[in-house]
């Protein structure tokens, strides 16, 4: 499989009142064509900011300060604003956590679908009526693809007239309208009921297989990752701490943080016993010393961990940011 997205040594910083926040601190990652990469981490771990950086959508006072983002052979950081705009929505698409806030309340669903086609689709006919018909047909097709009943009539409706699950489907339809090569799904299920969550994830997997696109699934639910992702990347405090094939990472984690995350998942077999939380708090990202960031919460921490820890090979296709990973097997 060829590499579609390759991020190396990405740094994204925010100038906050308290000081410089290194929200993304030297993240490197690869996504192959057609692959599904799960990105896991708690709130504030930098997973969303990493991919906002890829999209070129980091808001002021945030700024990408270092690193390269190669997509389809081009470094996105070298592109002009206009070139980047052309890639967004066409080659890389994104869905957001809550479709209720991500869809514009004042525009009809049809308009929000049509504009993305209008912005990117060069195959549309140029004649006005023909163009409008083509856009309508494509919109109906997309809503049908994500399983919205009677799509034709629903194009004229506003987002608030749909249920939560339907809105999520509409947002996915908009993201996929131009058949992107990469879909970044930022917590696609967090805002949904459990039953709808499964449907939406099935839908993404199904369309991914059909269109052959790559998917980055940002989530904090390891269960979702286990079921849908080929590979997984675990983030902590702005850094990648572990990555590898999903079954291996989940079956035999080689970073104490991943292990802690897995241990904190409720299991039916352990009913009645208290859950095992990871003690302590995520460190404040302002003015972090160059040392293992998980150190203060790590059950395996040793004095020698107070140094900067690089990503280390941990078997074929696996890497971990732990000095003591050999002891974890």
């Amino acid at each position, binding site marked *: 499989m060829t590499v579609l997205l390759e991020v190396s040594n990405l740094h994204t910083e925010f100038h906050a009142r308290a000081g410089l926040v290194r929200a993304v601190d030297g993240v490197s990652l690869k996504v192959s064509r057609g692959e599904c990469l799960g990105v896991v981490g708690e709130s504030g771990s930098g997973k969303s900011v990493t991919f906002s950086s890829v999209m070129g959508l980091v808001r002021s006072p945030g700024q990408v300060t270092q690193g390269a983002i190669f997509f389809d052979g081009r470094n996105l950081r070298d592109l002009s604003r206009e070139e980047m*705009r052309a890639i967004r929505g066409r080659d890389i*698409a994104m869905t957001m956590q809550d479709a209720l806030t991500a869809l514009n*309340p*004042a525009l009809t669903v049809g308009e929000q679908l049509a*504009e993305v086609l209008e912005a*990117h689709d060069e195959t549309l006919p140029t004649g006005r009526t023909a163009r409008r018909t083509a856009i309508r047909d494509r919109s109906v097709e997309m809503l049908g693809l994500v399983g919205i009943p009677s799509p034709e009539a629903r194009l004229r409706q506003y987002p608030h007239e749909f249920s939560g699950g339907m809105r999520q489907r509409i947002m996915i339809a908009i993201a996929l309208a131009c058949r992107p090569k990469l879909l970044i799904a930022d917590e696609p299920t967090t805002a949904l009921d459990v039953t709808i969550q499964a449907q939406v994830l099935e839908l993404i997997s199904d369309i991914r297989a059909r269109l052959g696109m790559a998917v980055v699934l940002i989530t904090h639910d390891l269960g979702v990752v286990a079921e849908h992702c080929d590979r997984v990347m675990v983030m902590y405090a702005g850094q990648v701490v572990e990555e590898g094939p999903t079954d291996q990472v989940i079956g035999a984690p080689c970073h104490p943080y991943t292990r802690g995350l897995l241990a904190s998942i409720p299991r039916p077999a352990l009913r009645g016993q208290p859950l095992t939380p990871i003690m302590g708090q995520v460190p404040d990202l302002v003015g972090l010393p160059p040392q293992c960031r998980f150190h203060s919460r790590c059950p395996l921490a040793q004095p020698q961990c107070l140094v900067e820890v690089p990503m280390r090979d941990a078997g074929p296709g696996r890497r971990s940011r732990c000095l003591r990973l050999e002891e974890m097997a």
Partner: protein
Amino acid sequence: MSLGKLLERLIQLIPVLLGVSLIVFVMLALTPGDPVQIMVGEQAITPEQEAELRRDLGLDRPMVERFFLFIANAVQFDFGQSFYHGRPVADVIAERLPATIELSLVALIVALATAIPLGVLAAIRKNSIFDRLATVGSLLGVSLPGFWFGILLIMLFAVHLQILPVSGRIGYASEVPTVTGFLLIDTLLAGDFAAFGEALRYLILPAITLGLPMTAILMRVTRASMLEVMRQDYITFAEAKGLSHRRVIFRHALKNALIPTVSVAAIETGSLLGGNMIVETVFGWPGLGRLVVESIFLRNYPLVQAAVLLYAITYVLLNFVADILYTVLNPRVKL
């Protein structure tokens, strides 16, 4: 919009109008100064003549009776005779009304046309020099008294630069036949473009003076709501779709940001009525505002009462218009 809602609004109007009538009536009665004395002035008249005049004007009856008489007549759209014009108050007001409406509408257009672009620009260039200037400018705009600002404009553009007329409305000199009473429309109907330009020249300074406070308020509302909207997820999502910056700003952000602006504009239009009295006086504009000011000085009770009722009705209707516009712009709300 259902008929029931419309009816409900109209019924709500009744207590408002009754209350307003009562307040105006009492306030006029409490204001020192006697219409008959003012009318007579220095002339020497006998007590008999004075009593007759008072009877003619209906001022010899007790106040409570006068109030109910006024209400009873007003219900039949009879507002009595103007003390000074010797004609029905309704006719006098109708004659002056077009000039005031024309001035107010032009002021409203000027305000909207400057406030919205400036507000949007200030929001998307937040904290820039332009934004700061706009903020200071809007503070000045709200605080400068209209009579003072109007006189400054007259001094600069009419007296010093001599490019715009000092005061008045082209009306007296124009030969254009009156159809609507709105000079901008009448001159166009007559095909007289020179007169149209002339009418416009007379309108510019009073319209700017009248619209200034409103411009300032609307600019701040637009800026604030634009900033609020730009933080929303749907703006990020629109950007993630690869739409042009222009489309994100104007189609996605502005459409939502205008909802509060339009509501405030509709309500603020009511405050133009108050501003009219000052601006029309400063610029010698022959409209209702100046007529009311004159009538207050002359204690022309019937005219003031009728005019205030008209103001109250306009204000309530404008609030109603604000509600309707709100639902038009915001698909989530139904009246």
